[in-house]
């Protein structure tokens, strides 16, 4: 008897919590399921038929959120609009690997028409889950698709996948720092050992730093709790700090800024969100643009123009310099004359 009660309560519990969640979203998601199931058996011309686009995002994070927004915009520009001809389902794994796998699996089980996977681990989880099905996986915010084995050296995927890479514009960043700080010698970089993208980026920095007369001092942390010490330590050794897109460090940006301010050195960001939050400047990718580009790739797959594995993954090379004037003033830095035209104030 007891075990039945236990089972019943366990299930009731999980269901009731679901109920507390975004109930309107559930309803719409549920109803789309039905529509799609019915519709998929009919011809594509049917007006009621909507394609199911499932977005799987690894973590909650300014840049990743921008990617998602951009992706939706990109689809829209190509004529795929939510509620009209597509339905979008979105799930976030909150940086939990187990949840990421489960979400990927669920999207595949629900027979999504296309999966958009945001950030490397999510891309890998979806890539694996969709293997053996004909569901295309379009990834974005993957720093190095080749290292992540999502693509081969020719920028094409072995499976039904493609996407965009958010490789940091390292050279532009170095050039920008040199322009702002002609005297600086050492640049400090904090990264977390758990993020593979950060290691790749540091290698790039080390490779290029010499050309601009810099020396890179890096310091790895294993967890958020290590950041205050590591930041204080590195701030005392360098002329400025530059950030990567390292999730752990970016989430603790305030701590890094605080340590840098105590040592009277500026912190350069790697994207606009960080500049908004107090970094002096960044030669950053526009993640909305990156998302849009991804959305357009997805659109061409949806239109059956090309298969995902026939599309090379793309890297956006163009970057903007974002500045935070208030922060610049704090460190007596000013925008070099030749950049005054092109910089964008981050607000």
């Amino acid at each position, binding site marked *: *008897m007891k075990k039945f009660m236990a089972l019943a309560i366990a299930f009731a*519990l999980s269901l009731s919590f679901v109920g507390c969640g*975004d109930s309107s979203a*559930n309803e719409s998601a549920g109803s789309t399921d039905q529509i799609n199931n019915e519709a998929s058996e009919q011809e594509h011309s049917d007006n009621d038929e909507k394609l199911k686009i499932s977005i799987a995002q690894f973590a909650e994070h300014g840049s990743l959120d921008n990617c998602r927004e951009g992706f939706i915009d990109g689809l829209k520009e190509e004529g795929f609009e939510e509620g009209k001809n597509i339905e979008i389902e979105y*799930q976030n794994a909150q940086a939990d690997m187990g949840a990421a796998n489960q979400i990927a699996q*669920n999207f*595949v089980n629900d027979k999504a028409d296309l999966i958009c996977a945001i950030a490397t681990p999510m891309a890998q989880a979806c890539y694996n889950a969709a293997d053996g099905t004909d569901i295309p996986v379009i990834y974005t915010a993957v720093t190095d698709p080749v290292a992540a*084995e999502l693509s081969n050296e020719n920028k094409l995927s072995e499976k039904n996948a493609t996407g965009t890479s958010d490789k940091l514009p390292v050279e532009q960043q170095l050039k920008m720092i040199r322009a702002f700080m002609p005297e600086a010698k050492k640049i400090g970089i904090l990264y977390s050992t*758990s993020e593979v993208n950060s290691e790749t980026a540091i290698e790039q920095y080390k490779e290029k730093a010499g050309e601009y007369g810099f020396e890179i001092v890096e310091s790895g942390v294993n967890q958020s709790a290590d950041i205050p010490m590591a930041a204080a330590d590195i701030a005392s050794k360098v002329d400025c700090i530059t950030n990567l897109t390292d999730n752990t460090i970016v989430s603790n940006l305030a701590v890094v800024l605080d340590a840098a301010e105590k040592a009277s050195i500026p912190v350069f960001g790697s994207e606009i969100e960080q500049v908004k939050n107090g970094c002096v400047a960044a030669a950053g990718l526009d993640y909305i643009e990156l998302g849009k580009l991804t959305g357009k790739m997805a659109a061409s797959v949806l239109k059956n123009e090309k298969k995902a594995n026939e599309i090379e993954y793309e890297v956006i090379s163009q970057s903007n310099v974002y500045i935070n004037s208030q922060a610049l003033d704090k460190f007596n830095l000013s925008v070099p004359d030749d950049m005054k035209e092109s910089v964008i104030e981050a607000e």
Partner: protein
Amino acid sequence: MAITLSILEQGLIYAVLALGVYITYKILDFPDLTVDSSFPLGAAVSAILITKGLNAYLCLIVSFLAGAAAGLTTGIIHVKFKVRDLLSGIITMTMLYSINLHIAGKANLPIFNSENIFSISPLKDYLGGFNTLFIIFLVVLAAKLVLDWYLKTKSGYLLRAVGDNPTLVTSLSKDNGTVKIIGLVIANALVSLSGAVMCQQQRFFEISMGTGAIVIGLASVIIGINLFKTASFLKPTTAVILGSVVYKACVAIAISFGLSATDMKLITGALFLAVLILGNLGKGKKSNA
């Protein structure tokens, strides 16, 4: 159908981990946090060896042994240096984090383009979509049968006795410490094996994949033991395996109903608590004895 298949796959992979946690938590009464790192340890070992071209099945064995070494470390810290159980696990877990990074070489190591235990299965062509499940099932079955057999040996008897009544083990002129170490070795070997299978199934190693592994293990054990307590024809090991599948099913159902991962831990905790309250008998009985 597809969702059932994925629940069974995931549930059974974690069932191997749950069997390990069953040994430490239920038999040894040892809260072993090593699990959070021995799970990715198995994955790291498997991933790196696969990229080096070792046979995927042999990788499982090496992962199993690596896990055994992790358990041995926790055991020695606890028994020989007299560090408290919880702390010994935490110490090994912390150290293993770095070691895992060193083993894999980086925080994320994909093996999409390499062979794995599923792709080289000789039965692949016959089983089609069930190939993965079948291989996982074989691993779980092997782990369960070997564990069942072991618990019926003299050494296994002693292991069961040590968590139950360490005084008796001393009276039998056996060192409690050695027996505990053996238990931890077997438990973490199983956990690591589970990590290895997981890594080969998801086809990449990710350093964060062990986060919360102990919770999954504990939940599976508690759900399994409490739900199937009245079904006395089931061996505890079978109950634990079923517990793992039930747990994964709850999670999968929750997600497919649109539950966000934000609330996931809350649900996990609530589910955990509900089963504990409903079945708050197992441990109670034991201490009244």
